[in-house]
């Protein structure tokens, strides 16, 4: 498989801002007055925002600003932290995900996540992608085979691995591992994908591949990506949210935020004056 060095992202970024008006009516994700504490430390200090379907939204901000904590609220990955406490509401497709009766496992099938460092399971490539289906109790081998192939194709990895799906996932390169992790997430067919600095551990070529991938996935998925790389945010996202000290400072169309921000703090950050 030829690695295409040509970056289509910039070209595509031009029609970024055009969003199908029909998609605007239902917000995919609605956040209302969310506050988060770790013990006494207030990590998120009251955030309201809506995220539209079939868009890429980038969360930027300096380390420790709360953007990763905020991202992990959407699939309730903070539940495992004993000192974690939150207030406020997060509605996904109109449903409050923090209600007691919400089945967290079901929620996470709807909302996939890709992590900062590629974290494939120490299993074969096939088993990695099939894992999400197998834990749902799906046994139909043909169905799983089809889903695995589809997911690997979507993640642009199929051509590179189809000759040997039984190979250990740990034998893949870092970039391939991260695409495998994306494939693993896609196999479950979520509607929202959360990405927590997915390219921070990768080289530029692998990063470019993942960015292209994110761009293409937007057609079917709503993507939220936390990134430290502002070029990346401006290349791939439709909307950008700037966080600072647990607050949402500015949230607007990516183009506007990077060319004509409303707040001085935002401008300082994106021009590299701090952070």
């Amino acid at each position, binding site marked *: 498989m030829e690695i295409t060095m040509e970056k289509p992202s910039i070209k595509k970024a031009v029609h970024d801002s055009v969003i199908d008006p029909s998609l605007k009516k239902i917000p995919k994700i609605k956040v209302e007055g969310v506050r988060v504490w770790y013990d006494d430390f207030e990590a998120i200090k009251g955030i309201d925002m809506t995220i539209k379907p079939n868009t890429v939204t980038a969360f930027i901000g300096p380390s420790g600003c709360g953007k990763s904590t905020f991202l992990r609220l959407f699939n309730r990955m903070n539940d495992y932290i004993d000192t974690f406490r939150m207030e406020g509401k997060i509605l996904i497709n109109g449903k409050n995900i923090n209600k007691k009766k919400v089945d967290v*496992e079901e929620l996470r099938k709807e909302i996939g996540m890709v*992590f900062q460092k590629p*974290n494939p399971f*120490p299993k074969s490539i096939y088993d990695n992608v099939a*894992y999400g289906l197998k*834990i749902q109790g799906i046994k139909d081998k043909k169905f799983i085979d089809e889903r695995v192939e589809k997911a690997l194709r979507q993640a642009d990895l199929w051509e590179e691995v189809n000759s040997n799906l039984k190979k250990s996932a740990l034998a893949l390169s870092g970039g391939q591992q991260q695409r495998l992790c994306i494939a*693993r997430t896609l196999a479950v067919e979520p509607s929202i994908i959360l990405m927590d600095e997915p390219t921070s551990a990768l080289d530029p070529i692998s990063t470019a591949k993942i960015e292209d991938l994110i761009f293409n996935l937007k057609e079917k998925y709503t993507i939220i990506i936390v990134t430290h790389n502002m070029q990346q945010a401006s290349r791939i996202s439709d909307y950008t949210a700037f966080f600072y000290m647990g607050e949402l400072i500015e949230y607007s169309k990516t183009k506007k935020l990077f060319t004509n921000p409303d707040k001085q703090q935002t401008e300082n950050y994106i021009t590299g004056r701090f952070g």
Partner: protein
Amino acid sequence: MNSNRKNKWKDQVFKFWGIFCTIIGLVLLVVFIGDILVDGVRRIDWDFLTSLPSRKAEKSGIYTALMGSIWILFFTTIIAFPLGVAAGIYLEEYGKKNKFAGLLEINISNLAGVPSIIYGLLGLEVFVRIMNLGASVLAGSLTLSLLILPIVIVATREAIKAVPSTIKDASYALGASKWQTIWHQILPASGGGILTGVILALSRAVGETAPLIVVGALAYVPFAPESPMDEFSVLPIQIFNWISRPQHGFIENAAAAIIILLLITFIMNGIAVYFRNKWQKKWK
């Protein structure tokens, strides 16, 4: 310059002191094993392994004690393994990390350091008397299970702690439940460590004498156990019994039995090392 030379000199002194200390331990062990081998190795043959104990040293064998040890080992394994591993999993994955958990943790570590004879007294009271099991294989196994439980729990927790949290996160993020994550990811990844810990704990159990004496294991049993409710003897008790006899023949017997016991522990430790290496390779 002067202080530099002084430091180098100190360095040398410490190096030789270290070598000396290491050698003391090794030499003692080698002398001990050599002495045992000289005394006992001629005594080991098939008859020695398959004969019942007897009043005549040259006719005596370790059959009943060896079978007793195997029975005890078997039941200790099936009792301590599931209990210890499940407790370890609970404490590491389910239990909240609060003050109570801290207290529990300290106490489990403390239990690992309680003298084994105390466990023997506990076993005597609870299993032999209250539960009315008598001086049986089952009572002995339960007592030894209590003895090694803290070791198994600690080993399980350590092995689980070593599993990267990124793997757990990935599993949860795909919609796996806690149990699915434990079963499909955590246990396969920590299995080598858990197994190593369990085997090392069992190899300690197989050498225990004091608690079994207290529970009522016999020095002389004319038959091998046929059910968990039978009376029993074990190798260390057989050895203890033979050593206390005046006739030289029994000393030889004791040495030969010690060789067998050492072999069993070495083999078990070898298996533990094998598992550890095999698992490590799979992970890299």
